[in-house]
Structures are given as C-alpha cells and as structure tokens.
C-alpha cells in the first residue's frame, strides 16, 4: 500500500469515528465503544477492498459485509453515507422515530446493509449462507463478516465456523473485533475466549492476527486471505481498543459499550480526532 492510500484510509477511519461521535451525540446515547473499535476495518473494506456500487446497492456480484455484531451499525452507516449510499443528513436521524438508521443493522431499511443483525451469534451463520450461495452460483465475490469477541460466547458462532470450514468457503473473510470488553466486564473476566486465533485455526480457518487500528496491516491480511485460495475460510483477528481514537472514551473501559455524549464531550472528541489544540 502506498503512503497516499494509507493516509487516505486513515482519514476515512477518522471521518467514520467523527461521524459515529456526532450521530450518537445527536441521538443522545448509543454503542460508542464497539463502533469506534471497528472504524479502521470498515474504512479498509468500504474505501479500498470491497467491490460495491453506492448507486446500485443491490448490484449482482457485489462483495457483502455482514456486521454480526450488529450494534456497531453507526460505524457502517458513517461509511455508507460518506460513500453516497444515502444523504449525510440521514446520520442525524439515528434511532429517531421513523429513521432508516436503527441502532442495530436492518437490511429492510438501510441502502447498503446486506443483512439484518443484532441478536448476537446469528450474523455469522447468515454470512456462511451468503458465502455458500455464492459458491453454488459460482460467483467470484467476497463475503465479509465482523464478529465481536463477546459475541463469540454464543455457541452459534462456532456452529457457523465449523460449517464454513466444512463447506470450504474460501470466499468468506471474517474478522474478530478483539477489543477484550463486553457489557458486564472484560471478556476474560466474564467468559474468556482463551486463544481465539488458535480456536479458529482448530476450526479449520486460515488465521491472521493484526493490529486492528493499522489500515495497512488489515488490508494486507485481506490480500493474503484472498491470495490463499485453499478452500479454507479466513479469520482475521483484529486486536483493537474499545472506544479507539478518543482518550476519554477509551478510559471509560467497559462502560463505553453504550454511553451518552454531551455537547462538550462531542466537541472535545472531534478536536482530538482532528488534532485541533484547545
């Protein structure tokens, strides 16, 4: 990846974070931490890797993203708005009556959302289904899925993973948002995943582990996953920080899963993201 591209993707990740802060601030409260932790992979996917057309959201043969951790919808909405799937003004309607942007992703409402998700553990099964359908249809698209680490306490995540390997779905590239936190505490405190990379390897995936806030490393891992057409689905473990990009949000720890933001906090967060001195 050249320096120019890298800088562009970092700017897109920053803009996604800024929009997440602004839209959740406007809504009053929302899933801040888990939206910020995936901003970099979302930037890499929507602004570099995915074959998509904002003017034709249901384009045949498009790459698809299933956000299995559906509560991080705001991060995807920010990317979709910047891409032009819908007007930027929509972002101000997050969770408001009649909105097309609900807290958790809803494919029947939002242009560009490929699967409804929110009941954890289901999206990854749906992604396996899409990937299987694409394999039957001999399509050449890639199916991406983002799973949470807390979400991976759901048994169905492992049912889905076993079947993806069984069906030899090397068109499936999954990510684990390994931010180490969930609502009731750290993942290790609640029910530890122990070694997620080793687990997915044992389940038949080719596994990559990268800094989830390094756009170049994320993109390189995707390229490597695509290059190895060996029948194995890919799991890219993203080591992330919940609330990444804004110090006071990061410092909230597990409390940043769902938090409210006042005007002063929004302004402080945006200043920090854009490097503006106070």
């Amino acid at each position, binding site marked *: 990846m050249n320096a120019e591209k890298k800088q562009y993707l970092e700017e897109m990740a920053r803009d996604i974070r800024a929009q997440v802060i602004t839209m959740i601030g406007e809504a009053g409260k929302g899933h801040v931490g888990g939206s910020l932790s995936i901003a970099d992979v979302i930037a890499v996917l929507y602004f570099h890797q995915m074959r998509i057309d904002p003017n034709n959201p249901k384009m045949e043969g498009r790459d698809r993203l299933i956000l299995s951790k559906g509560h991080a919808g705001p991060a995807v909405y920010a990317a979709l708005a910047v891409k032009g799937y819908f007007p930027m003004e929509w972002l101000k309607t997050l969770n408001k009556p009649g909105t097309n942007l609900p807290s958790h992703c809803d*494919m*029947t409402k939002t242009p560009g959302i490929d699967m409804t998700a929110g009941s954890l*553990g*289901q999206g990854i*099964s749906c992604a*396996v289904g*899409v990937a299987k359908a694409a394999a039957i249809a001999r399509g050449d698209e890639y199916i991406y899925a983002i799973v949470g680490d807390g979400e991976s306490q759901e048994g*169905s995540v492992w049912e889905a993973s*076993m*079947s993806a390997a069984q069906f030899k779905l090397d068109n499936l590239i999954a990510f684990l948002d390994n931010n180490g936190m969930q609502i009731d505490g750290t993942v290790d405190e609640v029910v530890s995943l122990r070694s997620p990379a080793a687990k997915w390897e044992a389940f038949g995936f080719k596994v990559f582990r990268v800094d989830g806030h390094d756009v170049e490393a994320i993109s390189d891992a995707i390229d490597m996953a695509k290059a190895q057409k060996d029948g194995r689905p890919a799991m890219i473990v993203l080591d992330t920080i919940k609330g990444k990009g804004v110090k006071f949000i990061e410092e909230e720890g597990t409390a940043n899963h769902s938090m409210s933001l006042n005007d002063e906090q929004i302004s402080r967060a945006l200043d920090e993201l854009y490097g503006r001195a106070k």
Partner: protein
Amino acid sequence: MERELAKVLCESIADVMIKNEKVVLVGADLIKTNGLKPIIEAFPERVVNVGVAEQNMAGIAAGMASYGMIPVINTFAAFASRRICDQVAISICYAGQNVKIIGTDPGITAELNGGTHMTFEDIGVLRSIPNITIVEAADSIELAQMIPAIIQHEGPVYLRMYRKATPFVHNEDYRFKLGKADLLRPGQDVTILCSGIMVSEAVEAGKQLEADGIDAEIINIHTIKPLDEETICASADKTGAIVTCENHNILGGFRSAVAEAITACKPVRIYPVGVNDIKGEVGVLDYLRTRFGLNAKSIVSAAKRAVAEK
C-alpha cells in the same frame, strides 16, 4: 385409501427444484429421516447439510435467501420452532427472508421419540412472529399442491406435517389455495374447524354426528396464519357454535387464533379439542390419540355439548 406424506414431500420438493433453480434444500442431519435422500442424490450441489446445528441451519438459510435463493429447511417440528425461534424471528422474518421451514412430526406424531420431541407449542411460538405464514397438510393430495404454493409465495412459511401414511380427505379434483379454507361438509348445527391429522377424525366425527341427527359443518383450515377469517366468521354466524380440533396445546395455538378472530366478528362459544396444557409422552399414534383425546370420539362429544348448550 391412504398415502405416505414423506414420499409426497420428496416428490414435490424434487419437482419444484427441477422447475425452479433457486430452490435449495437445507437440513440438519434429518434429511434422510425426513425421506429426502433422493434429493441429495438428484441435486448434490443444491443440498446443504449443516449437521446437528439447527440454529446455524436457519441462519444459513436466511443468508442464502438474501442472495436470491429459496431455501427449504427441514427438521423435526420441535427444532423447527422452539429451537430456532430467535433465528426465525430475526434473521428470517424480521429480515424479510424468503425461507420455507418444514417441521415434521408435530405434536403426537412424534410418537416413539416421545415427549421431548412432541411440539404442542410450535404454532403458538411461531404465529406471534410478524410476516410468517403457517400451514398444515391434511393429506397427500393437499401436500402435493401446498409445496409449490408455498414456494411461489414470497415470504417465510412454516409447514408442519406428519410423515407417515395418511388417509385421503380430498379427491383428485381438490384445488389448494393458500389462505383459503376448505369446506369439507356443509352443515347448520355446529362448525368443526380442523387441520392436519385432525381432519380425517373430524370427517369421521361428522358421519357419527349425522347418524345422531346433528348437521355439522366441517372446515379444513390448512392455513393457520393468516387465518381465513371470512369463512370462519360466516360459519360461526350460521351455526352459532364452534369446535376447534388441533394436534397442539389448546393454549396459544389454533383454538386461540380462532378465538381471536371470532371475538372481532361473531363471538360464539368455542369447544376445544386438543392437548389440554399437559406434557407429551412416548407412545404409538393410536395410543396417543386416545391419551390426549385427539380423535373422532372427542370431537363428537364436544360437538354434542356445543349443540346442547347453544
């Protein structure tokens, strides 16, 4: 005259898969049990077996539907309803996915698998989910027409069905119409509403009632959701009393659905024949019909009370 429903299911699925290349079969280690082994042989690339993982089966089906396919998932009714309830609610119905769910061995037809496999709550669980259509086949003639009809219908459908030999209640002139109840016997004194394995018993009950001077109207409600309220209300208006017959708990299922409908149009007394909110148990069908009162005798008794208490 009777015919095995599993055979008809297999023939009908094969037929729709020949005619419509979007149809795929998704199972969870009961594909062969459900008599669908010939589909695996005929369409190896269009059959997905997820193993013993029903929730994953439902999610995979939703994903395949989002790609434009028409997945037919199949397992026992117990797993097709309570086991995958959340996947049906969110990934299939809330997401508006065109998935067909076939649950075999509903209620007492689980027979020797016993009470753990006996769904007396599948209709109740699923019918409160928006966007789902629920059907139940009474015989092979109905099932053969029901399969292409539910494939043609855009949206999620749950079909509950017995697998074994079932006596004919229809003749070859029968024409199935999704959402439209079948009048099997016109009558004036009492309305008997039934579906699935209760239909042949209701027909038998109608004969016994006729011998005793009671003119029963018998209606086959193959589509439990959406209910054919027009037909039910018109019949309630005519006869003034209803007997509901269901291979299901009388709480939350068919009787409840009928009650909800007629309280809004023609409130009449309902005499339920069904499982009286008790647990299932192991046994053969004849034993279980008697044990839970799911037979012509119970229907005759309920109908006589209905007429006497009008």
